[in-house]
């Protein structure tokens, strides 16, 4: 799995505020449709298939991905925060390897 996902989460928010979150995961998202130009053989599919954003252990956003997703899957989405806590972002690839990133937010 690629190593360095980027996430953008506001550090603070007001109770009940809807905040925007942006994530980017560096990955070539090999579609399985491409052929090796030298051998002519198909390059096997290898993509990040799932992204989950959870807040304090509860899922708030999930994406199921297919080869039609562009390389370096990027998402912008929203969530309403009612308490301080921790966002947990998890990406899972075709080999079931995962990368998890956490970010805290202070809500008052």
């Amino acid at each position, binding site marked *: 799995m*690629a190593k*360095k996902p*980027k996430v*953008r989460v*506001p*550090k*603070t*928010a*007001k109770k009940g*505020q*809807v905040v925007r979150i*942006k994530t*980017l995961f*560096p*990955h*070539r*998202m*090999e*579609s399985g*449709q*491409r*052929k090796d*130009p030298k051998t002519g053989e*198909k*390059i096997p599919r290898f993509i990040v298939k799932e992204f989950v954003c959870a*807040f304090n252990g*509860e*899922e*708030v*956003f*999930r*994406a*199921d*991905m*297919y*080869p*039609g*997703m*562009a*390389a*370096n*899957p*990027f*998402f*912008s*989405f*929203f*969530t*309403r925060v009612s308490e301080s806590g921790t966002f947990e972002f998890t990406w899972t690839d075709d080999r079931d390897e995962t990368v998890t990133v956490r970010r805290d937010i202070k809500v008052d």
Partner: protein
Amino acid sequence: MGEHWKPWTRRDALKAAGAVTLAGWALSPAAALATPDEAKAVLDRLTGGASMKEGRITVKLPAIAEDGSSVPITVTVASPMSEADHVKAIHIVSEENPNAEVASFHFSPRSGKAEVATRIRLAKTQTVLAVAVMNDGSIYIARTPVTVTVGGCGNQDG
């Protein structure tokens, strides 16, 4: 709230891509593309074959995509996102890609706003379908035509 945080720029995205090889999307000449019929089959599976209404969905997609390997798309569904009335899922389906299914996004009242932005691959000029599944089981669909100048194909033999 005095918190400032810069929205992502394209440069940030490119930096994040770093050393990752940008793999285009290859289509060999023999690669079978999805057809509108296949897209319909995928829709039936995603929606349980329920009837679909127009409306409530706004899709932001360039009219002309010069590079099919990364096409920005934003889907917004008009919804209060309350316990009683919210969007459960948004599906993006392609009529002309090798795989009709592109992505599915799952929401809850905690989402606050039913909107997602991402980047997709488009093999050729086509109509992109965005489907919203509401918590009451009703389903909405938006059909957005997009002209693709260079398909999301890495191999130039394709």
